[in-house]
Every structure is written in C-alpha cells, then in structure tokens.
C-alpha cells in the first residue's frame, strides 16, 4: 500500500447530487492519493456511475451539497472540458457512438486541445498517426479501429478497449473507470487490465467501478469501497472484495 504521506489528488467531502429531482448521492466521502488504486463496488443502482459522472461534470446531475477538491482546484466549479484539461478522465460504462467522426480525428483533437492547455506541441495528422499507433499497442488495439468512426458499430468489448486507448492518449492524473471490465472477454480483460497497469505511475491514480473480483486480480486495489443507497458504507482493502465475492452485499452495513 502507498504511504499515506503521498499527495492527495482527489478529496470528495460529503458530496450529494440529484438527477431529475431525485436524490442519488447522499454524502460521499473519498480521499484519493497519488499512486493509489480505489475499487468501488456495490449493488446495481447504488450510485456508482452517478458518482463517476458527477466527478466528470455531466450537466444532467445537480450537486446539492458538499465539495470536491482536485489537486487544489474546486472541481465542481469547472465545466466538464476543463475538468478533462485538469487531468480527470472518465471511461464510460456505456461509451457513446459518434457517427461521421473518425476515431483518430477525435483523439487528435482531444490530444491537441489538451496539449495546448499544457503548453505542449501540437501533432499534425502524420505525427499523430505514429503516436497513436504506439499507444494502440498498450491495449493491443488493431490500428484499423483508428479509421473507423468513434465507437460506431464497435462491439461492447471493443468500446471498452477504445476507452482505455483514449486514457492512454490523454494520460490523466485521475482515471475513473466505470465497469470497464464488463463486456470484455477473458483475454481482453487481461490485455486491458495490463494496459491500465502500464499507465499507472506514482503521480496518478485510478478509481475503478466494478462488480467482479476478476478485474482486481489483475489490478490490485489499495482500497475497496462499498456503495449503497448513494453512500460509501464500507471501506476495506483487497480482502473485502474477496469477501464480497463469496458473501454478496447483504451482510455489509455502514
């Protein structure tokens, strides 16, 4: 486990949020430090995706209380694109299709926009082509996917792999992976999980939402949180995940 002296990246304090007038998140507390992997588990509908989207700034959700600090910035004040510029990345549970926009053009625009914010160099289409081919290897993605439209006609597993390719390109400080493992076949799970491991450094952190222990066999979590009814009702280490795998959620209480 990482020493508790490493830098705090994300500090969520008493966060509550609603959607369409319904309260979903009811006081979330979570501290994520550099180098850490956090797993969030919990029954369907407990608010895991809601938390992920609220952190990324989805406009449908209204924050009704609490605050979120990200590397010293008040995250809740930033529009979603600026959260991305600041280093927050969300791999979606259900990645959206964007017809007419090629994967490589989309990634290049995202990359160059971020580079501009970071004061880095733009890559022209040829340079980017080299760069993205290199990155594709991290998730063993066939380069033919780069010429296809973003997620259009991708299988469920291919979409998830594409999400991690995007993570590799954008190199975020905090990656929130919402059920990236669902839909991946056995080999793909290993490949994608290894990809995430390669992207981990002592300066970044990952929050993984998952239902299954098998992902955690590849990416060892430092903390496992159990969400229920919009709250984190229990936090433990990786042994907790193993226990949940055999016993389910019913025994867990706040």
């Amino acid at each position, binding site marked *: 486990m990482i020493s508790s002296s490493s830098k705090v990246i994300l500090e969520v304090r008493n966060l509550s949020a609603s959607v369409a007038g319904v309260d979903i998140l009811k006081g979330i507390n979570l501290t994520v430090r550099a180098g850490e992997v956090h797993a969030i588990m919990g029954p369907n509908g407990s608010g895991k995706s809601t938390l992920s989207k609220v952190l990324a700034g989805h406009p449908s959700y209204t924050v009704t209380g609490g605050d979120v600090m990200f590397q010293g910035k008040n995250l809740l004040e930033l529009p979603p694109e600026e959260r991305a510029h600041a280093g927050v990345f969300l791999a979606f549970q259900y990645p959206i299709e964007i017809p*007419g926009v090629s994967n490589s053009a989309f990634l290049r625009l995202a990359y160059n926009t971020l580079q501009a914010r970071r004061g880095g160099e733009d890559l022209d289409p040829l340079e980017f082509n080299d760069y993205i081919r290199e990155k594709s290897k991290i998730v063993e993605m066939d380069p033919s996917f780069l010429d296809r439209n973003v997620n259009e006609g991708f299988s469920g597993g291919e979409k998830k792999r594409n999400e991690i390719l995007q993570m590799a390109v954008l190199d975020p400080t905090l990656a929130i992976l919402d059920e990236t493992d669902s839909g991946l076949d056995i080999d793909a799970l290993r490949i994608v999980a290894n990809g995430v491991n390669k992207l981990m450094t002592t300066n970044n952190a990952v929050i993984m939402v998952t239902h299954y222990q098998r992902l955690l066999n590849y990416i060892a979590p430092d903390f496992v949180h159990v969400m229920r009814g919009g709250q984190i009702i229990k936090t433990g280490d990786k042994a907790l995940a193993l226990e949940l795998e055999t016993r389910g959620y019913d025994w867990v209480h706040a």
Partner: protein
Amino acid sequence: MSSALETLINRPYEYGFVTDIESDALPKGLNEDVIRLISSKKNEPDWLLEFRLNAYRHWLTLTPPEWANVAHPKVDFQDMVYYSAPKPRKKLASMDEVDPELLRTFEKLGVPMSERKALANVAVDVIFDSVSVTTTYKDKLAEVGVIFCSFSEAVKQHPELVKKYLGSVVPTGDNFYAALNSAVFTDGSFCYIPKGCRCPMDLSTYFRINNGESGQFERTLIVAEEGSYVSYLEGCTAPRFDTNQLHAAVVELVALDHAEIKYSTVQNWYAGDENGVGGIYNFVTKRGLCQGVNSKISWTQVETGSAITWKYPSCVLIGDNSIGEFYSVALTNHHQQADTGTKMIHIGKNTRSRIVSKGISAGQSNNSYRGLVKVSAKADDARNYSQCDSMLIGATCGANTFPYIEVHNSTAKVEHEASTSRIGEDQMFYFASRGIGAEEAVSMIINGFCKEVFNHLPMEFAVEATQLLGLKLEGSVG
C-alpha cells in the same frame, strides 16, 4: 454547457447591413405596364417582351403551390418592388468605375471583385438587387470562347443563344414562381461554354439583395456545348430587414453530348431573427437538362439561410448514359423552414442518378427533404441511389423525408436509404469529458455528417461552407 451551445448556435448574421446607395426603383406593384417598363428600361427586343407577357398572363391563372411542408402568410405580390437598380453614375468601362460604396459592400462580404484581388482564379458576376454590377475576367474567358456575362448583356450581344435556350429547360408556365420570374426577371448570369472547351476557371455569381422592398428575380442560363466542362458557383446574402422578401430565381442548365456542368451553391440569405421575424422567402426553380449522350449535371448546395427555402434542383436525363447528381446540406435554425430536395427524371437509356441529402435542424425549425425519382418506360437500365440523412439538434425541431419513386421500366434499379440522428447531451458530454468544448464538438459532428457533400464543393467553397455551418450552429444542444 447547454448555454454554451445556445450561444454557439445563435451567432448573429454577419451580412445584415444595408448599403446606402442611390437606386433607381419602380413603384410597388405588378401589372402589364410594369413589365413593359422593365423591358423598356432594359431596351429589350420584342420577342423578350412577348416572352414576359406570355409568362405573366399564364401566371395570373396559377395559384401559389401549397403542397410544401412550410407555412407562411400569403405573399402580397402587389406590395413588392419588381425593379431596383443601383444608379450608375455613368456607363462603367472598368472595375475602377464601380461605385466605391458598392465595392466596399462586396469587400465586406468577402467577394473578390477587384481583379487584382481575385487570386482564387474565379471569374465573378455580381448581381446587386436586380442588376448585374460587374463581371470579372471577361476578356480572359473570351480568349477561349467562353461567354460569361450578365443576362441583360447576353440578350444584347448573343440574342440567338438566349432565344434558343431561354425557357427551354424551365418553361414559362412550369410553376407559379417560375412563371412570375419569367415575367419580371431583371438580370442574372449567362454562361456559354463552346464545344470541347474545359472552362479554365470557376465561374461565380454573387447575389445580393439590398433594397428592403424589392423582390429578387434573377435568371441564370448555362449552356455547355459538346464535350465541354464548367464549374459554376453561386453565393447569396441579404441585409437584415424585419419584412419578408421574395427571392424567386430560375436557373436553367443545358449539357450537350459529353458535356459536364457542376453547379455549386452556398445560400446564406438573411434567415430572419431568432423569433422568426423577417428573412428571405427563397422560392427557386433550378433544373438541368442532360440533353446529350454521356452528359453530366451535378448540383451541390449548402443551404443555410432564408426564412423559407423551397427548391428542388433537378436533372432531366434525356441523353443515353447521362448522369445527374444532387448533393445537399440544408441547415435550419430558429424558425427557419426548408422544403428542399431534387427530381431525377430518367428518360434516356442507362442513365444514372445519385442523391445525397443531409438535413440539419436546430431550434424550432423544420427541415424536409422532398425528392422524386422517376424512371420512364424507355429508360432501360436506369439506376438511382438516394441517401437522405437528418440530424436533429435539440428537441424542438423537426425533420421529414418525402421520397417519391415512380418507376415505369422493370430494368430500373432504385435504392433509397434514410437515417435520423440527434446530437444529444450525452454526445456533447462525451466530447467534453475528453476536453473538447461544445463549439468544436458540434462542428466536428456536423462536418462529419456533411463530409460526403462538402467533398463535392470546390476547395474555397468547402472551407467557406464549413465555417458557415459552424457560425450558424453556434450553441444549440440542450
């Protein structure tokens, strides 16, 4: 984010200014005397006056079409000026003598009027209200036998050609607005590409309505002789008025054996304000005749302006193996209404047509595609492929597709595909979560959607069209 998209889609119209220029205009109203007056102001030959009067008398028997999916108050044809011309200080011998105020107007509009500025190698004819103000590169074109001049000049210099082809594609009685145009048209462009000539530069006409009460009725006629090729571009803008103005143009194209005409339009007439007040009624008849064997006519249009657009650039495929194409992007926002599409009439054997229509609706607008594919009994082995895609931005706009297919020959192959998609909040959020803001996201999606059409525009026009769509769409997913 919604509000960022709001502003994105609602950027003001840039061309809404009025040029303060002295003009020579007839009083409002229409009758035979007005037509005689127009004809005499233009010193027209008798046959042309006859043409006008016949059209007028026929028009009186017609009623405005009501089948289109658009709604507007009845147009009062007596409450309109039918002739308005910027008063020339004297006869113009060169560009330098054009009223500087006019020149400034076109500078502002980004039209390369002065020849030294025209690096784009495009010859330009400029129509201001009712009359042609100037045509550039005339001499250079004359060297290869290409005639490119205002319609009025063509009537004087090349009466035999005008007489032969005027009304040969769109007869005077074709429809209500075509009949009206035939009666009162004041100017327009004329192009003649001689046999075997590949026109050395793109030809372009730039239309500008300036007078708040004048209708604009221009007439374009393009004749491509055997084995010739021409690419023709048309652009349009108008100032912002809170009344509606009528634009009822007629465009006729004739392609003889092995000839090809490529006709591109970027239409950006004033569309009215965000509440639907003002804007141009764009009721236009455009038709091309593929008269010769192996001839080809290709319409590419980017329709972004006008309060109401009613236009169906069509191809009549008479020559065996002739080809008709229609590539269209129609964008409507606020309260704009568009009912646009094409007609492909297959008459010759082995004729081919291709229709690619992309409709984008935002705001409270309504965007309809209406297209007819007709294969006549003698058109053996005719083929058509149509693809009509609609994109909705936001939840308050509408899109419709009305394909009509009439096949009278069993060897015909006609394919039609249609799709509807919506730019929604989740798509925008996906972009945003990757650091891409609303403006760029919308423009990326729209450009992807329109790619196939933009690929058929000449380079400079494609760039202009891309920017224009970006401007028009500043801000509208919610």
